[in-house]
């Protein structure tokens, strides 16, 4: 029965639209998963196809200038077959008593710990910088260039310095300083930056009418920060967290390599690179492991974003 009251009609269509939005969300998730799997299959097909193509040219003793010059050679040293790369996960390398995937998993956990500590510390430092810069606009003009300049120093240059400082100077802490903590600091160096820059933008993103509203309630600085400016900055912050999370993995891996820290994926990749000629598939497998770790932390951030930001951004149904 059609209602004459537009308010009631409004409500009915809103309820209907909400349930439709939920169904759409499910369909979207299925579609995304299918797309992802299809894309992975395509990548694998491309790799295998190109390899087979190169092999065929070799067999026919033809010379195609592009293959082996611009594009990689297709022999097993340069492009191990996918079956061998994935098969490697189940193998037990010489001198070890665990299968390779278990070794990689443990080392990924080690790297993840460095990255996670680096991420959290970077988040705190980045937010602190954002808060200070947002509070005093003049500082923003004075300090922001230095924050940006900090990112132009190559990571490889500062990594050894931090490790040396860590060994010699960081005994002020109540706990014993370990090398992996230095790597965490290196990861921090990459993670604080996106958080600071996006956090600053986010803290300034609250709508003027909302600020006026808080002023009309005589809300103090802390109340306005906690109830308006921080929540309003969340979309910006999560965009930064996604960058920061993957950067923290990069920072941890590069940090391990240049600092010579044992036990993580960075060290693993370096070792497999040395032993490349005897086991190219192991290098590929370990790099895959690093990629999976990066994707994992990215998904974790997306999951947390869903939980925290929840429905507010989505489901604009009316």
């Amino acid at each position, binding site marked *: 029965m059609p209602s004459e*009251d*537009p*308010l009631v009609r*409004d*409500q009915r269509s*809103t*309820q209907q*639209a*909400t349930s439709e*939005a939920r169904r759409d969300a499910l369909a979207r998730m299925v579609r995304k998963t299918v797309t992802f799997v299809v894309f992975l299959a395509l990548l694998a097909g491309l790799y295998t196809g190109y390899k087979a193509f190169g092999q065929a040219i070799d067999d026919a003793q033809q010379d195609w200038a592009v293959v082996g010059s611009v594009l990689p050679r297709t022999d097993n040293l340069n492009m191990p077959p996918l079956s061998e790369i994935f098969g490697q996960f189940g193998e037990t390398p010489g001198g070890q008593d665990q299968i390779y995937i278990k070794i990689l998993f443990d080392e990924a956990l080690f790297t993840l710990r460095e990255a996670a500590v680096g991420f959290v510390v970077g988040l705190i430092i980045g937010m602190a910088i954002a808060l200070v810069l947002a509070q005093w606009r003049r500082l923003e003009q004075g300090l922001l260039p230095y924050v940006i300049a900090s990112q132009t120093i190559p990571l490889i240059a500062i990594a050894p310095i931090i490790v040396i400082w860590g060994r010699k100077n960081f005994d002020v802490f109540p706990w014993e300083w370990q090398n992996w903590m230095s790597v965490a600091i290196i990861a921090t160096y990459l993670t604080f930056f996106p958080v600071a820059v996006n956090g600053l933008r986010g803290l300034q993103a609250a*709508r003027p*009418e*909302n600020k*006026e*509203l808080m*002023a*009309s*309630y*005589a*809300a103090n600085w802390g*109340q306005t920060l906690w*109830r*308006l400016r921080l*929540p*309003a900055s*969340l979309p910006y912050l999560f965009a930064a967290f996604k960058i920061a999370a993957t950067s923290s993995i990069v920072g941890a891996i590069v940090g391990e390599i240049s600092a010579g820290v044992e036990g993580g994926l960075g060290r693993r990749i370096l070792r497999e690179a040395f032993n490349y000629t005897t086991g190219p598939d192991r290098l590929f497998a370990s790099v895959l492991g690093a990629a999976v770790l990066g994707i994992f932390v990215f998904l974790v951030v997306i999951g947390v974003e869903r939980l925290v*930001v929840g*429905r*507010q*951004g989505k*489901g*604009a*149904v*009316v």
Partner: protein
Amino acid sequence: MNAIEICGATKVFNRGRSNEVNALAEINLTVEPGEFITLIGPSGCGKSTLLRLIGSLIAPSSGQVQVHGKAAEQARLDRDYGMAFQTAGLFDWRTVAKNIELPLELMGWSRTKRRARSAEMLELVKLAEFAKHHPRELSGGMQQRVAIARALAFSPVLLLMDEPFGALDEMTREHMQVELLRIWEQTDTTVVFVTHSIPEAVFLSTRVVVMSARPGAIAANIAVDLDDRGVALRDDPAFFKKVTEVRTALREAEA
């Protein structure tokens, strides 16, 4: 005691600079408790500025604004104001109920009291079943009703509204006007309402304050003494007479 007392208030923006704007010149206005007054005038006549002066969101360049016998600034700190703006300005990350509870949280109400009050307010604006929805799931008209519920939640003595129905379609707008009047009658607040619409001003208010532009000044005070403000009033000859009266005053103000 008067609800609002404005004595010789002026507002100059960017004083002494090339872009200096003389927004308000010598405003004198007295509003009694329980009045529903509407500020109407051409764009740029400073009606929103005047509303913000009353609400102490900006300070006058000279003159005084008093609310219930105290300075506007003090009234704001005492949380005497409820405000609703042109856009609903709800917090997207809060549910409808939580939006209404926002001022109550700031005032330190207990959780149970907040819950009870937001439920009560949602009942008042007929949105009870949407307590757990998020603002973006609501239509513009529904959002505006939540904003009004939020403004009224802590029973402010003074309700300041800046074109709150400006973005609504005509049908919803008329419904909202009726709702607002019903709420106003139930709660005994004093309302200052800014609008562009002459029929809206006449329909809602007990007094229409007509303003002229450049610099903003009060051109006329028109008392509206219509009794029954129901749906039928919109077709009443007395209503049209008042609309014409306000329109004439506006024209004179612009001339």
